[in-house]
Structures are given as C-alpha cells and as structure tokens.
C-alpha cells in the first residue's frame, strides 16, 4: 500500500516535473523571442531615423543642385559664360524680391517659399584679386525652433554683365529638418 502510494506519488511528481519542464521551455522561448523582437524593433526605429536623415540629406543635395539650375538666376545662353554660371543682376533681383514685403511680390515670394522650403541659401562671391568675399543672402526661412541642419556647398561662377567680370563663387545651402534633434 505504502509502496503503491509512493509509486503513485512518484508518478505524479514525475508528471508534474515534466509538465513544468515543458512549461518552462515555452516560457523561456517566448521570452527570448520577445527580447529579440524588442531589439529588432529598436534597431528598426533607429534605422528609420537614419532613413529620415538620409532623406533630409538627399533633400539638401537636391535643393543645392536645383538652385544652381534655376533659369531665373543662370547666365543667359547668349552670354556664353559656360556651365554653372549665375547672373549677378538676376540673383540680386531675386534676392530683393524675396526680401521684399510688398503685396505685388507676395505670390512670387510664396512660390519660392514653397519651392525652397525651410532653408537658408547664401551665395559667396570670391573676389580673388582684392581678396574680398561678398555674401548675398538669397533666401532665408530659418525656423525658430531648434531643428537639425543639413548643409551643402556647391561651386559656380558669378558673372556681372555690367562690369563684365566672372568670379568664382559658391552656394551655401542649409536645409532645416522637420524633426527635433
């Protein structure tokens, strides 16, 4: 009787232990999976941030190239000043329009505001003879909140049709990201 009872208890205990083992296996597996997934999603969100950052960089690069390619500021073909040439008078005219507050230029200003977005665009004109640098602020829509910046430089020449001089220049384009740093 006692032995039978002991054998029965042993059987139950063994069954319970086996049951417990299986349960532990399942719990541990789920636990490892959850840790793995958490880690995976954390890495994913990190890579999403990197993806956004990459997109912002592409945006800054595109903006720099597009500014240089704007027909509104490029030297006329008939002037034959070579590729990547900015007409000084066109650039300064556009800069004046964008800095204007008059109602007659509002639609034009809105157009460029939509085109350029949140950015600052400066043109640095290098007078290598007199060792001078003139900076023309073409456009400035810097947000007040502290956002991340993406900056691009690209060289061009700057031709003044009145003075007849073509100088080395570069565009300094800073694009502001929509997210906080």
């Amino acid at each position, binding site marked *: 009787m006692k032995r039978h009872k002991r054998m029965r208890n042993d059987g139950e205990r063994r069954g319970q232990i086996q049951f417990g083992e299986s349960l532990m296996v399942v719990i541990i597996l789920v636990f490892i*999976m959850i840790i793995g997934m958490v880690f995976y999603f954390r890495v994913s969100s990190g890579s999403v941030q990197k993806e956004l950052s990459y997109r912002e960089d592409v945006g800054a690069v595109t903006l720099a190239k597009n500014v240089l390619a704007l027909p509104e*500021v490029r030297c006329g073909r008939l002037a034959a000043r070579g590729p990547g040439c900015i007409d000084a008078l066109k650039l300064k005219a556009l800069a004046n*329009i964008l800095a204007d507050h008059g109602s007659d230029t509002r639609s034009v200003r809105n157009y460029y505001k939509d085109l350029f977005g949140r950015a600052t665009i400066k043109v640095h004109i290098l007078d290598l003879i007199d060792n001078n640098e003139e900076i023309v602020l073409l456009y400035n829509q810097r947000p007040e909140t502290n956002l991340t910046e993406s900056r691009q430089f690209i060289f061009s020449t700057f031709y003044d*049709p009145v003075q007849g001089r073509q100088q080395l220049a570069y565009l300094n384009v800073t694009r502001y990201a929509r997210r906080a740093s």
Partner: protein
Amino acid sequence: MTRARNAGREPRSPTRRAQLQISFHFIFALIGGLLFLLFFFILIRSVVHTSEEGDTRGLSFKVESIIRTAAATPDTFTVTSLPTRDYRFVCEKDAEGVFSYVQVGQADVADQHALDHVPVFAPRSVEGDELFTLTRTWEAPFPIGSLMVVDNNRTRYVIVDSAGALVQEEPQSFIKEQNLAGFNMQPFSSAMLASYPDTGFDRYRFILFNGNPSAIPVALRDKSTALVVQRHDKGGTLTFYDELGTGIPSATASIVYYGDAMLLAAIFSHDTPSFLCNRGKAYERLDGALLILQRRLTDIKNQKPNPLPAEWNDCLKLYNSAAGLLQAFKGDPTGSFATAAASTPGGPLPALEQVNRRLLNKQDCPLIY
C-alpha cells in the same frame, strides 16, 4: 504482508487522475503551441504590412526625388528601374490651389504637395517596372523652367504626317531627336492610318500634324488618345481628343501653345486637365522670371557698364522698349500673360525676343536675358 496480499493480482492500470493529467498536459501543450504560432503570425503580418507600407512610401519618395533631381538636369533622358507598380501622376486644383504628387498603387500619399512646383507631363497612370523621364527647358524665348515628360515602354506614340509635301518632314525631324529615341515613337503616313495595327501596347497616342483623328481605327480607340498640332513658327494650336469614341471624334479642347518644349509636354499629357494643370505650374514660374527680368533691366539702366559702350543710347531705347513689354504682362496662370498667350502664341515674348536679338548686334550692351 502487503507483498503477500498483492501476490497473484494483476498490475494496476494508470489511475483516472493520472490519465487526466496526461490529457491536460497535451491539451496545454497544444494551446501553448497555438498561442505561440498566433503570436508569430500576428508579428509577421504586422512586420510585412509595415514593410510593404514602408516600401511603398519609400518608392513614392524615390520617384518624387528622381523627378525633382532630374528637373535640375535639362535635356537628359533617363531610364529608372522600379518595382512593378502602378504609378499615378496627379495634378489637380481645388479652392486652395494646386496639389500634385505621385501615388504608388493604392497606398496613402505622404505629401500631396510634393510636386506642386514641378511641371510633370505624363499619362494619368504609368504601369510597369520602368520609368522614362526627359527634361526639356521651356525657352519662351528665355529659359523659364524645366518641363518633364514621363512614360515607359508600354505606350506607342504614333507621329502621323499630313498629306502634302511641305509638312511631311516635320514628324520625321521631330522624332529624330536623340533624346526622344527612348520613347516608342513611330512615324506613320496619314494615308495608311485607317489600317494601323494593334501591336500589343497598353496605350496609343496619335500625334497628327494638321491631320484628322477620324482615320484612327475604331478597334484601337478605347486605348487611344489623339492630339492634333498646327504649328506656326515657335508656337501654334493644339487640339486634344481625350476620348475618341466610335464615330467622329469630338475635341476636348483647343489650346494655343508657345515653345517646342510645351509642344512636347502636350504630346506626353494624355488628357487636357493634366496638361493645363501642369502648364499652370510653368506659367507660375514665368511670373517670377518676368519680375526678375524687369528689375534686372532697371539695374542695367541705372548702373551703366564701365566703360560705357559707344552705342549706349541706342541700347537704352531698346531697354525701354523691353521694359514696356515686361511691365504690361504678369505671367501667373490667371494673369495677363496667360490671357494674351491664349489668343496669340507666346503673348509678348516673341516681341521681347526680337528686342534681345537687336541688342546682341550691339555687342557691348548687356542683354535683356
């Protein structure tokens, strides 16, 4: 004592309780396994769904970036391989203004204003795994901005000549241009148009120079559109046939155009509203360009070149003439340029071009543009 009592008896079968325990054990294992699988199924489904959404958003961004970057490199033909999808080029206008974007498949659109300032002339929808893009500077007559045309190899463009020797060369010279070689353009004689065969393309676009779209075979009309072009110097008239029907096709709209780039844009716009919407973006650009030229001209007159050219007084007269032309017109879609250009190709621009050419002959005077 117990041993003696139990001797001779048969061995006991597992107890009912033990049996139940074993059953529960298996049931529990089964339930646990199912929960496990369910958990994974939900996880994989959400990851795949997120990944697909991310892919589609990434695609939309990629296509928009390609278009915006290509706009900065004029006269360039590019072929971009993309995942096989349906790419919809949307340009519409509501009370607040224009909204223009690329929609990939049925996915939500992240930015409905992504292409608001980029004139993109394309069929409403381009299906496939490739996008062909060509950028052309709209010179009217000075460079105003880039116009982009988009399509792929599933559309056939049939350039139909007109009866009469004088205009027969026109379609040939038009499509000989190297940059257009990538698009499926085929010259065709108007005399044979009625028997034009279906060669398996998704779409056909018939460009008729002074021709009649009635000759387009009825069998092709449900997947065809037509554009009749009447050229006069640098401009002309475009008549759109967005729906051909089965009888005599009726025109959707007749529009005056100026500049070869605008003609190309009309060829690749398979419907009138899309063409007008995108042309509006180009006109908006022209508004800014005219204002810049006005101010530039004022600066030239005030600053005066040093040394002063011998023919400065003659140049000054030409500058004043140009200033008058520029002052009279505003280029926005509802402005006076659009109104003037609606009846006369180019509005004041041909006259401005003449003034600039006269300045070119003066040699030392800065040009208007």
